[in-house]
């Protein structure tokens, strides 16, 4: 567990910053809800008549006047994008940073074996994602209680579970990419997260591109759909978990044999 502890310590500041930012934005959104819910009838009508954008963000399926509808769209975007960026960045960086910072000579000449190094690094990514989601879930629920709203447990739990699984899928794919990279990992991680996000928007807008949702983890965590239907799309989720497994498998096939620059 030495590398897990080392990675968690190295990534502590970034974790606190990302966690603090996402939690603060979610908290602000929730604290604004009581003030905004009275105006949401007109907002819902307006959002429902925005053509392709309405479809892209699933705004025709929800009532913004309810906490569930408001949370799925407003808070869902904050948690969805924030969590996705964080997961993609740390997973893309976790292996490649050793070559980028020229610390691979130090780390990989200790008697551990690359598979163990990878496994501990992957575990550190998963631990950070779990902690981020637990903290944010706690802050969300506490914020809802603080503003005196009844907590829609089922929808909130499903939404947070979906975002957690989405981050795991992105992390798996980016971990695979990390094994092939030598440098430039942060921008690549961000780029992948943004690409996946827009793939989902395109899948929502265009009927002919709807199969793209199987390729992007945002496909199974569409807040509007989850809140409206009360369940996750099992097929899209299974496709996502398969992609995650492929990413991790690719890393385990590549990294043990990789020439370290």
């Amino acid at each position, binding site marked *: 567990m*030495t590398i897990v502890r*080392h990675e968690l310590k190295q990534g502590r500041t970034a974790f606190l910053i990302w966690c603090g930012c996402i939690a603060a934005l979610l908290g602000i959104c929730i604290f604004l809800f009581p003030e905004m819910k009275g105006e949401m009838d007109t907002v819902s009508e307006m959002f429902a008549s925005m053509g392709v954008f309405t479809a892209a963000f699933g705004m025709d399926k929800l009532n913004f006047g309810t906490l569930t509808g408001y949370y799925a769209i407003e808070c869902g975007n904050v948690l969805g994008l924030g969590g996705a960026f964080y997961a993609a960045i740390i997973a893309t960086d976790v292996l490649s940073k050793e070559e980028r*910072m020229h610390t691979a*000579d130090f780390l990989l*000449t*200790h*008697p551990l074996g690359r598979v163990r190094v990878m496994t501990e690094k992957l575990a550190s990514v998963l631990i950070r994602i779990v902690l981020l989601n637990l903290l944010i879930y706690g802050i969300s629920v506490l914020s809802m209680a603080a503003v005196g709203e009844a907590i829609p447990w089922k929808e909130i739990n499903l939404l947070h579970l979906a975002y957690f699984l989405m981050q795991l899928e992105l992390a798996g794919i980016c971990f695979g990419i990390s094994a092939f990279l030598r440098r430039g990992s942060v921008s690549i991680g961000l780029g992948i997260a943004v690409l996946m996000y827009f793939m989902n928007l395109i899948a929502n807008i265009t009927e002919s591109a709807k199969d793209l949702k199987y390729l992007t983890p945002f496909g199974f965590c569409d807040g509007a759909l989850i809140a409206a239907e009360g369940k996750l799309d099992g097929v899209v989720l299974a496709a996502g978990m398969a992609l995650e497994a492929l990413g991790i498998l690719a890393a385990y096939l590549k990294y043990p044999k990789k020439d*370290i620059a």
Partner: protein
Amino acid sequence: MEAIAAKGLTKYYGKTRGIEGLDLSVEEGEFFGFIGPNGAGKSTTIRTLLGLITPNRGNAKIFGKDIRTQKTAILRETGYLPSEALFHPGMKVKEVLRLSADLRNKDCSAAAEMLCERLKLDPSRKIDELSFGNRKKVGIVCALQSEPRLLILDEPTGGLDPLIQHEFFEILRERNRKGATVFLSSHVLSEIRRYCGRAAVLRDGSLIACDSVEALSRTNARRISLRGEAVLEGLEGIRDLKQTGDGVSFLYGGDLGALLGRLAEGKISDLSVTEPELEEIFLHYYRKEEV
């Protein structure tokens, strides 16, 4: 037992040659020098032995263990100092040393404390604040603190002041006397001469000489310095010819009678014949056209 045994070790980076057909044998307990010009393949050899890169052909064993299939077992007995010692940012020296010990699953605190004291390294300093030389010291302590059977040191003295260099080699000698094998890659020939029993010379990815330092230093060539005029054109065995004001200086390994004949025909006011410096001898290994 052989500490290092390489046979036909070959590594290409795409089409670029790293090392080719390298045969190398280092016995356990040796203080072995590894020398060659930049780009000769010294670091490629070391990185291949340590499993950081995989050879295209050939194989090598360290203490009888295969570098492809028994990497972890090899690294358990090997301490490595890279030519550029870099560590994770934001850490203190003592944290890096503890991390290195933990990665070996060993308590090296006593050895680390002793080494830091001898090398005048403050363990409470932050790595980011250290000079190149002090970072090198951190690398040295990491390599030595677990008291490995084999030490692989790539350009270890760069950035170290002469007093610390002296102390560092004292530590290496002590370890060597206790049975550790030292594999020292260096550009500094005086280090090789002073400390190594045997050495290998690498050029263009191939081993061109491997013998005792004494045998490698032995040569029939002499440094000839003369003042005056003499026609030297056409004489075979002249290298490193330099004009020196009113005369010339050169290394001569040819027929002495032929040289003396030419000098007798010229106008020579002064002549000295000396043994060449070790550096001069090794330099001819480096230069392809002169070997």
